[in-house]
């Protein structure tokens, strides 16, 4: 099993529903977020291109945050989902320094927190909250090892990219372009 997400940058309108859904679903403290929207403008006038990206932890296959965690609090769970065990985390910040996507934040209670791909929902066969709430259906989630999963099908007939591939982390968030 290899969980991944594909994000359609052509369909995303940057409404931020995924952000709010995540904050509600996961009880994210006020002022923090586990996912966020980036508006990216590329080129010079008049040939500009605009892209909206819903970003979150990339659940990297080669995850530096897991490698540098001194206590084993950051670890990989079933299907490659990267998680933090709260009562093992000492809040040293090593994982925050090691993440090229700045996907982690120190929770006011001390431990480090981030996107979990809503593993509590995924275990029940549901989608992450952000996926289900998206009004334009631009998020696809599923198992890359299953050729018929939403994410595999989305990646099959579209061009895609990952963010900062040069960081060598093998991210599992794919952006359809």
């Amino acid at each position, binding site marked *: 099993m290899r969980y991944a997400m594909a994000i359609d940058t052509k369909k995303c309108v*940057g409404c*931020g529903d995924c*952000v709010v859904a995540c904050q509600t679903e996961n009880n994210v403290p006020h*002022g*923090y*977020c586990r*996912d*966020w*929207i*980036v*508006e*990216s*403008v*590329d*080129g*010079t006038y008049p040939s500009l291109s605009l892209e*909206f990206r819903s970003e979150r932890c990339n659940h990297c296959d080669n995850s*530096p945050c897991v*490698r*540098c*965690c*001194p*206590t*084993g*609090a950051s670890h990989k769970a079933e299907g490659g989902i990267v998680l933090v065990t709260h*009562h*093992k*985390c*000492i*809040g*040293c*910040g*090593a994982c*925050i*320094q*090691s*993440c*090229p*996507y*700045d996907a*982690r*934040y*120190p929770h006011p*209670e*001390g*431990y*480090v927190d981030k996107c979990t791909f809503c593993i509590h929902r995924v275990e029940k066969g549901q989608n992450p909250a952000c996926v289900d709430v998206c009004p334009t259906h631009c998020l696809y989630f599923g198992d890359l090892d299953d050729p018929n999963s939403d994410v595999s099908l989305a990646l099959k007939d579209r061009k895609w990219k990952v*963010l*900062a591939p*040069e*960081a*060598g982390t093998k991210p599992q968030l794919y952006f359809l372009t």
Partner: protein
Amino acid sequence: MKEELFVSGRDIPNIDPYLNIWHWQIPLYLFLGGLAAGILFFAGFYTVRGKADKMQATVKWAPLLAPIALVLGLGALFWDLKHKLFFWQLYTTVRLDSPMSWGAWTLMIITPISLIWVASYMKEMFPWWDWKFDFLNKAEAWVIKNRVGIAWVMMVYAVILGVYTGILLSAFNARPLWNTSILGPLFLVSGFSTGLAATILLSKDPKERKRLSQIDLIFIVIELFLIVHLFMGFLAGSQTAIEAAHLFLGGPFTVTFWVFVVMLGLVFPAVLETLELLGFHVPKWLPAVLILFGGLMFRFIMVEAGQITRYLY
């Protein structure tokens, strides 16, 4: 042109717009670790070479500072943890992939060694000292008999500690300024140089000071060479590495780095030490104090600047 904006109001404290999760505690900890590593290495070195009598400050007095520096450093590290009550989790696992983990274990080993070392000289340093308990006196006798062996172990751990202070940062490949293999040797050399400087300050023997200054001069030259090498490496690297180098070559850290670290912390003390060795009169504390100051600044700047270098945005 490329412009990227957060449209979801992302503004996480300590993460946006600039990562600033490590504050003064970490550079201080790295400085004190390097200082202790330098002191302990040379104490071991002159013991192994049978020169303990000639190098009293190096072998006996300066090591008094080492456990103090290590404990203060650990205190600073502890202070910076956001989840302090879980501190002990560091010692329930050994994770070789994590520099933070092997740093914690290295400190766990070298701190008691440094204490034993100091304890074995207590009676020599303070004649009125008395261990009160018989078993402590026996332990002391054992340590004194095995000093050379302990010195070897201490030297090895001092090198590991010194390198670790740099590797802690260089292991983070998400921060281009840190992600270079030169940081390990650079921090090692710089730590040793600060250790020598502290010893010079404590030494009352001109011959010993001269010896230490000579070694220190070599370390300063190596350090300057490594710094040049560091920037050459960045400028020949990827775009993110080039941007990291530009923080020091025209960017916001240019003045602090070149003036405080390179000029005042390395070049100037090197000139003073050379003049002193040539027989000119130089206040003996001046080069040493400058080196300590430069070493501290170096760590503050590296930690600060490294955190604002990144791959995205």
